[in-house]
C-alpha cells in the first residue's frame, strides 16, 4: 500500500507500545465476577421465599429475566468484539497496515476481558508494525505474546520466528542468532508449512545480514520448495539468494559477469513480487535492479 503523504499517521514507538500493553493487559473476569449474575438471581429467588404477597410471585420471574437478559447482552457483546477483531485482521490481510494499526489500537482496550481476542489483536498490531518496518516496536508485541503463550504450540513457534526475523530487521544480530538457534528444534515438526518457510527465510536473511553469502549459496538446494508455503512472499527469499550469488560472484572476481544463477533467482523474485516491494524490505538488494 503506497504511503499517503497527507496521512498524519505515526507508528508508535517501542516505549509507547510497551506502556499501552501495560495499561491494557488481558484481564479475564474472575470466577466470582462470572458467578455474580447467578448470585444475584439466587438472592432474588431467596427473597421471593422470604417475602410475601405479589412481590414474592414476581421476584422469580425477575431473576429469570435478569439471567436471560444478562446472558444475551454478554453474548451479543462477545459477537460484536469478535466481528471487530475479524474486520481489523481483514484490513491487515488486505495490506492496509496503517488502517489496521489504527483499528487494532482502538480495539485493544475493549477486548481486554477476552484473552483470545486480546492476543489476536496484539499479534495483528505487532505484524503491522513489523511490516511497516517498525521492528523494535514489533519485538515489544512479540515478546509480550511469547510471555503469555504456552511453549511448543504452532502459534508460539510462528511468533518466535517472526520475532527472530524482526530482530534481524532491527539489526539485533546476536539477539536474532539466539532466537534462530533456539527455534531450530521447535520448527522441525512444521515441515512444509508457512512456519518452516518463514524460519528458512529468517535463516537466509541472517546469512545475508552477516555477509555469509557463500554459505547461503551452498545451502540453496531445495530452497524453492522450502520457501513455497510463503506464497508470493517467497519472492523475498529468491531475491536474497540472488544477492548471495551476486556477492559470491563479486568475491570471486567476476565483477563484469554476473552469473546465471543470480539472474535466474532475481527473475523468479520479480516474478512473484515487484522490485519496489523487494527493495522496501531489503534495501541491500539495490545492485540487483540492474540485472532486470
Amino acid at each position, binding site marked *: 500500500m503506497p504511503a499517503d503523504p497527507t496521512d498524519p499517521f505515526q507508528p508508535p514507538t517501542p516505549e509507547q507500545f510497551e506502556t499501552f500493553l501495560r495499561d491494557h493487559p488481558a484481564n479475564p473476569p474472575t470466577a466470582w465476577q462470572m458467578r455474580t449474575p447467578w448470585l444475584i438471581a439466587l438472592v432474588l429467588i431467596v427473597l*421471593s421465599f422470604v417475602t*410475601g404477597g405479589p412481590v414474592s410471585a414476581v421476584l422469580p420471574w425477575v431473576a429469570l429475566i435478569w439471567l436471560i437478559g444478562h446472558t444475551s447482552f454478554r453474548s451479543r457483546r462477545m459477537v460484536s468484539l469478535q466481528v471487530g477483531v475479524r474486520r481489523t485482521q481483514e484490513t491487515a490481510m*488486505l495490506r492496509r497496515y496503517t488502517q489496521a494499526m489504527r483499528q487494532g489500537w482502538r480495539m485493544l482496550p475493549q477486548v481486554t476481558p477476552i484473552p483470545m481476542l486480546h492476543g489476536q489483536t496484539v499479534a495483528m498490531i505487532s505484524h503491522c508494525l513489523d511490516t511497516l518496518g517498525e521492528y523494535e516496536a514489533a519485538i515489544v508485541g512479540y515478546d509480550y505474546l511469547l510471555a503469555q503463550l504456552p511453549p511448543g504450540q504452532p502459534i508460539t513457534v510462528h511468533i518466535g520466528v517472526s520475532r527472530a526475523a524482526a530482530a534481524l530487521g532491527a539489526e539485533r544480530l546476536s539477539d536474532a542468532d539466539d532466537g534462530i538457534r533456539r527455534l531450530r528444534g521447535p520448527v522441525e515438526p512444521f515441515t512444509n508449512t*508457512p512456519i518452516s518457510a518463514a524460519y528458512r527465510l529468517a535463516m537466509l536473511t541472517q546469512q545475508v545480514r552477516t555477509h555469509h553469502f557463500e554459505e547461503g549459496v551452498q545451502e540453496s538446494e531445495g530452497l524453492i520448495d522450502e520457501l*513455497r508455503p*510463503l506464497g*508470493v512472499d*517467497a519472492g523475498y527469499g529468491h531475491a536474497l539468494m540472488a544477492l548471495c550469488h551476486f556477492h559470491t560472484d563479486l568475491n570471486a572476481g567476476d565483477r563484469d559477469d554476473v552469473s546465471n*544463477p543470480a539472474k535466474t533467482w532475481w527473475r523468479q523474485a520479480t*516474478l512473484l513480487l515487484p522490485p519496489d516491494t523487494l527493495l522496501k524490505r531489503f534495501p541491500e538488494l539495490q545492485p540487483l535492479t540492474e540485472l532486470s
Partner: protein
Amino acid sequence: MNEQPPINPDPDANGPTDQGDQTPPTDDRAALNASASPVTIPPFTPDRFLRDLGIDSTIRWTALVVVVVAAGYLILSEQTDTTLGLAVVMLLAFGWISINTISATVWRTLPSITELIGHNPVGAEALLAEHLKRRPLVRWVRLMLYHRLASIRHRQQRFQESAVICQSLLGQNLGPARRQRGPLLLMLLEAQLQCGNLHGAYAALLELHAQPLPLVESLQRLALQTRYEVLAGHDAAALAGVKQKLMLAELMPADHCGAMHAMLTTSATRAGHQELADWLWRRTCLLCSPAQVKHLFSSPFSIGVVAPPDPNG
C-alpha cells in the same frame, strides 16, 4: 538454483476430464483414510432430517405450553397456597432449563467436533452420531450438527451427500446460525463442481453473490467462481479483472494461489492470450510444487488445466 525441475505434466492428462468421475485423488491420504473409514451415521435423507426437526419442535413446544399454562394457572388461581405455587413454578422453570441444558451441552462440543474433523474424521463422526441422537435440541443447534455432518461428508469426498445436506440446511431458517449460510453455500458450490453439476453450481454462486461474506470466504468464492468459469468455458469472464483477481489470489494460501494461477493459465491459453498465459504459468510453477501441479493436471476432479506450450521446446 540453476535448473528448475521441468514441470511438464503428462499432456494426456491435460485435456478436459470426465466431470462425473469421483475417484478420490491419490495423494490426499487423509481424505482416503476418511473415506475408507466405517460410517457410523447412516446416509443422509431429507425426510429423516425433517422428522428430527419436527420431533425436537414438538417436545419443546409441548414443554413450553405446560410451563406457561401451569404458571398462568398458579398466578391466576387465588385458592392455591403461595409457597406451594412458587415451588411448582420453580420446578417447572428447572425442568425448562434442564431441557435447554441438553442443547447447551451439545453446543459446547461443536468446536471440538470442528477440530476433530480436521485430523480425526472418524472420531468426529462418532461424536456427531452420539449428539444427533439427543432430544430435544434447540433447532439451530441441530442444524449446526448437520452442518458438521456436511463438513465430514465433504472431507470424505462424498460430495453428492454433502450437497444434499447443504441444500436441506439452506432450505431452513437458520436463525442464530445464519452466519453459517456463507460457508454452507461455499460447500454446496464446491460439491456441485466436484459432481460436475454446473447448473447447481451456478445457482449456489448466485446466492453467494447476494450474501455479505468475510474476506476469507470471499477469497474462497473467487477461487470457486473461477473454477466454475473455467469448467463452463467462460474464459473471458475468468480473465475479466485478472489483475485484481491475482492481487486477491496472493492473499490465499500458497497452494490455492497456485491453483488460481493454473486456472487462469488455462483460460488465458484457450482465449489466445499467450503472453499472459506464459507469465501465469511461470508463477504457477513457483507457487506449486511439481507434485501439486501434477495433481492439478491429473486429478479426476481436474478443472482441465491446459498448460501453455513449453517455450524451450
